[in-house]
């Protein structure tokens, strides 16, 4: 296959002629326009470039791209590029490529000075924070209407959401909670065995699961499972203009779409937390009795005496708070989703990340408050 070749001659003092020959195909190695620029740099008298393309056997957009770069560079250096010697198809493609009228590109409304730019960023951050507060306000308002019996949403859809984020999550919550209970038992055994106090594994597993771990693990599972699902569902509705259709009918998307989801998790998260507590205790029990040789009755009695009602309330508080966090993060990201496939992906990821981060922060805050209050 004859390769693309580029050679030069000077028909007159101010003119550089480019002789193009061979196959100028995108899949081959093509000459660079830098070779031409080197010629221009070496001869400052050149104000015109012409072409002899009579020996080109095949060409595609590789040639057009080469010429386009050359034309743009020529424009910058005030060198006239004459296209007459080029194949007709190439000339038409170049006209098309050069037709992009920069006047038609929308002008961005942006501040010019440094101070304005900083202020713009600050305002963007504030408006983002305000949007979150506004969203929380709208949810609160929707719950107010629910309490007043004025909220409008579909009961059957609410029941389906409750079923999806409650019973539908039992399998995963069981697996993770049993495993966490087992892990706590094994870790407790490493240290307590040194003192012959393995029976206190029951206390560690019971208190840890009921007070915090059951709720935290359930919250993390629900972030990945339900929070992501809320964000994707609402995000796709945003993309398909379904959310706009609610707004133009005067129906609040927060009341119709968000409030039932938040309510569903407010109801189901504490219940799932209690379930996770039992599963975790069962996991610890299995390991302690079968692998660490503890008496099952004694283990059960120790668990009963260690786990106080205050631990249960603290665990339920964690569960309730995490439920609100997961639902709000998922719905907020979904409702504010950009109208593209990428936007739905980003909203889903953001919902999971912000929910898990908020859960960890909320755990720290609740633990600190409990410490201060002495419970």
């Amino acid at each position, binding site marked *: 296959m004859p390769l693309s070749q580029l050679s030069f001659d000077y028909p007159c003092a101010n003119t550089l002629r480019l002789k193009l020959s061979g196959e100028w195909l995108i899949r081959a190695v093509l000459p660079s326009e830098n070779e031409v620029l080197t010629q221009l740099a070496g001869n400052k008298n050149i104000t015109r470039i012409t072409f002899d393309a009579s020996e080109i056997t095949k060409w595609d957009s590789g040639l057009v791209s080469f010429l386009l770069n050359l034309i743009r560079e020529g424009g910058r250096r005030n060198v006239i590029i004459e296209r007459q010697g080029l194949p007709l198809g190439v000339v038409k493609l170049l006209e098309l490529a050069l037709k992009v009228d920069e006047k038609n590109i*929308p002008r961005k409304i942006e501040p010019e000075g440094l101070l304005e730019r900083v202020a713009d960023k600050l305002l963007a951050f504030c408006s983002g924070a305000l949007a979150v507060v506004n969203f929380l306000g709208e949810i609160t308002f929707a719950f107010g209407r629910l309490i007043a019996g004025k909220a409008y949403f579909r009961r059957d859809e609410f029941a389906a959401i409750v079923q999806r984020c409650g019973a539908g999550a039992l399998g995963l919550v069981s697996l993770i909670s049993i495993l966490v209970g087992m892990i706590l038992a094994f870790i407790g055994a490493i240290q307590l065995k040194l003192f012959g106090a393995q029976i206190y594994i029951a206390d560690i597993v019971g208190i840890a699961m009921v007070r915090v771990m059951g709720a935290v693990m359930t919250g993390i599972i629900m972030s990945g499972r339900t929070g992501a699902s809320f964000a994707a569902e609402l995000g796709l509705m945003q993309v398909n203009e379904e959310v706009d259709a609610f707004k133009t009918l005067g129906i609040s998307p927060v009341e119709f779409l968000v409030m039932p989801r938040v309510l569903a998790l407010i109801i189901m998260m504490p219940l799932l937390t209690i379930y996770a507590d039992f599963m975790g205790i069962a996991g610890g029990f299995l390991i302690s009795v079968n692998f660490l040789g503890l008496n099952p009755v004694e283990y059960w009695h120790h668990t009963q005496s260690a786990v106080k009602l205050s631990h249960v309330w603290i665990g339920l508080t964690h569960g309730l708070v995490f439920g609100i966090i997961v639902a709000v993060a998922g719905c907020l990201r979904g409702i504010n989703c950009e109208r593209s496939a990428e936007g739905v992906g980003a909203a889903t990821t953001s919902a999971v990340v912000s929910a898990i981060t908020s859960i960890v922060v909320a755990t720290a805050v609740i633990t600190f408050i409990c410490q201060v209050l002495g419970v």
Partner: protein
Amino acid sequence: MDNKPQSAIEVRGLDLSYDDYEVLRNLNFSVNQGDIFIVMGGSGCGKSTLLKVLIGLKEPLKGEVLYSGVNFWAEDESVRQDLMRSFGVLYQSGALWSSFTLGENIALPLQLYSELSSAQIREMVELKLSLVGLGGYADFYPGQISGGMRKRAGLARAIALDPGIIFFDEPSAGLDPLSARLLDDLIIQLRDALGATIVIVTHELASIFAVGDKAVLLDAESKGIIAEGKPKDLLAGSKDPRVIQFLTRGEKQGAAL
């Protein structure tokens, strides 16, 4: 006696942006009661952004939109919500709520904003579906019907409350020529039957000439209106090469290649 037709919509000095980009400025036009009004223009000229401003989904940078004399964007949220209930909107994708059946999609606005009983709502749903040629499809979900049928079902929902103004966003987009023609005929029939004012945002020439009483042509370069009038008059009488080029698909004056 003043025979001047009454304006259903009046737009004054409207500036619009999309994200941080200014797309249109100083728009002025009015839509007469009962007219089919076309907003046309090439891709990216700001047609859909203008529609969003007209239907209350996006606030303009400045300017006024008046509905029967009421300055929409200067009013309180509650007044705007009331006005929005007098609109019907057919979105480009149909925007049917995917977890609802077609019947439930149409019934929802009736349940919310009418005093009809459940039986009357069912009858009304069947009527609206029949008006768009989808009688008997009330129990189908949007995912179970074709794109053209989804558009018609979206139209049935848009006319659920017998709105005074119906907005259409690219109604013929993605439809085969026959379905597009049927939808155009349906738009005229509904206008005649309901007496509604209709605003259509489109660049489909066949639809523009088939249904338009009056049109404005938006231009991305000048960021404004470059022609206003009856589509056929614009084609016959306009001296502006941009208008002729748009209305003849570039076949006259200045086709690029």
